[in-house]
């Protein structure tokens, strides 16, 4: 297992290096990062001055090494809009996003897993039909549109929850539902098919034929094996939420990273966007690594295997 974890760790470091390369070259795709970041009406002299100030006139390799060495020690560059280092701005917004994503994920898991389990154990039942309908709805409804509908119904018409901001504990409810609904759909469907698949495995038949009670079979054999595929997907979903928050946070004026990213794009503050992209990638890659560790702990095939 140590070897497995070590190789996974090494892989994660490589992935992050890849992210840095990607983010560095992305703002250079159009050929001229200075023009990209300056307002459209800027004069050629201004652009030239900006290019020199940002160091874009240096050789690419020097710029890249500069960018790389900065990122390694946590210096992700300066925001053009706020005129200060990007990292403190990100850390300031991070708790709001983590709160939103955690509540969303909790909402998705708490609703989805029981529905998926019932559906898998009793396919064709009323609960199964309900679960499948919710699963399909969750995967088909655009979350940015659902957010608008939630605002109209629950904030404007009924007045139960605030429609924007992060002032009271109630504020998180609507954005969390809107952000979590896609993961909810995916988790219901996944849990259901995992249970169905496991139930048709040979070892379940063996367990039945050696006379184990259904309860023991469900808890010890089916649930444990279903948990393995769930853990990996839940990890991925959290990463998805960090990216998806860009819509939801904008709509609900939620003061998190997603809204910071959207606002920064609006004012062409690309160093800020770069920093957010790198930072979010670090979080996602770390989460994936932790998921794999959890995976290895749950699944003896990985613990003792390769």
């Amino acid at each position, binding site marked *: 297992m140590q070897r497995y974890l070590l190789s996974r760790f090494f892989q994660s470091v490589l992935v992050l290096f890849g992210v840095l390369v990607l983010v560095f070259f*992305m703002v250079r*795709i159009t050929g001229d990062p200075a023009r990209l970041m300056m307002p459209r009406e800027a004069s050629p002299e201004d652009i030239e001055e900006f290019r020199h100030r940002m160091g874009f006139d240096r050789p690419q390799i020097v710029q890249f090494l500069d960018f790389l060495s900065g990122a390694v020690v946590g210096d992700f560059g300066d925001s053009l809009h706020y005129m200060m280092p990007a990292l403190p701005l990100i850390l300031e917004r991070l708790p709001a996003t983590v709160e939103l994503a955690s509540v969303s994920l909790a909402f998705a898991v708490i609703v989805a897993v029981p529905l998926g389990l019932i559906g898998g154990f009793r396919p064709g039942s009323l609960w199964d039909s309900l679960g499948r309908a919710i699963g399909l709805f969750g995967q088909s409804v655009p979350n940015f*549109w659902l957010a608008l509908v939630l605002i109209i119904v629950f904030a404007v018409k009924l007045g139960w929850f605030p429609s924007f901001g992060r002032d009271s504990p109630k504020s998180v409810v609507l954005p969390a539902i809107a952000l979590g609904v896609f993961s909810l759909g995916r988790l219901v469907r996944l849990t259901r098919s995992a249970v*169905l698949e496991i139930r*048709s495995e040979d070892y379940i038949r063996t367990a039945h034929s050696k006379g184990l009670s259904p309860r023991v079979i469900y808890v010890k054999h089916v649930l444990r094996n279903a948990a393995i595929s769930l853990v990996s997907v839940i990890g991925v979903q959290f990463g998805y939420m960090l990216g998806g928050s860009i819509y939801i946070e*904008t709509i609900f004026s939620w003061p998190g990273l997603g809204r910071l990213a959207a606002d920064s*794009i609006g004012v062409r503050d690309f160093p800020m966007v770069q920093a957010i992209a790198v930072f979010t990638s670090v979080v996602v890659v770390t989460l994936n690594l932790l998921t794999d560790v959890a995976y290895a702990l749950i699944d003896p095939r990985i613990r003792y295997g390769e």
Partner: protein
Amino acid sequence: MESERRPKSYTGPRQGEVEGLRFRETEQEVRGFRYRLNRLTWLLVRDRSGMLGLALFLLVVVAAAFSPLLAPHDPLEQHLAVSKQPPAWSDGGDWEYPLGTDNLGRDLLSRIIYGSRVSLTVGFFGVLIAGGIGLVVGLISGYIGGRVDNIIMGVINIVLALPYLLFVVFIAAILGRSLLNVILIFGITDSPIFVRVTRGEVLRIRESGYVEAAKSIGAPRWRIIFDHIMPNLIGPLITLATFEMSGMIFYEAGLGFLGLSVPPSVPSWGNMLSAGRKYLLSAPWIATWPGLAIMFTSLGMNLLGDWLRDVLDPRLRRARK
């Protein structure tokens, strides 16, 4: 044996089906394309949600193909006198504009019909590019294996580990608003999933009995790839393409919503949502219709994809029963 023979027109499920994979790899291979098509049609008619999915999808295709014939108005024509008119069945509505008008008095029904063109174009060409890249790279990675495979999969894992949406928005903001840019963005960023699925399937097929048999009678490499591997890739890739197309239609609207997709003058569902958001309280229907359009298109493709997956993968079909 006598019992093994069946009339050629027989299209229902067969005895061999319960054996899952073995059926797929031997008997079906021999029966050829016509047999498969008959069997697919038969299975589709039997599956009601699959039919619903197909119907929804075809509805969007028809809307996109015949927009000028179906739309009652020019989607760009402004009638400021009737701006923000509600749908026909509510107070103040008029059947001249069945779904109402937007803030500039443009007919919402016509804009929804024309908007399907952008969504379908992005979805179709995006999937075509992603699938093309995925097929070629996945075949190389899976069939050649070794160091090449390691490098390719390393890169794929990097891309798949990224917070996808954030990067899509980031690239779209850099490249600027155009239909071609949006198609390229989705086509390229989505290809890693196709690479991974293709490679997985190639690895599985490469180890199968019939590829081994083909090798042992001395079939050249190109023949194994084109005659044995490629036909077996079609099923999984079409299924994946359906889901990914649904995803692209979804994300294109998301980009439009942030003002990063096609130019604002083009009627697209995302642009309509983005515009309607400003009039959420005074004219909620402006944002409602494009949202419903996206949802039903996505629903149709998901149903279609579910059905395709069940039909094309006998292992899952068994599990579902």
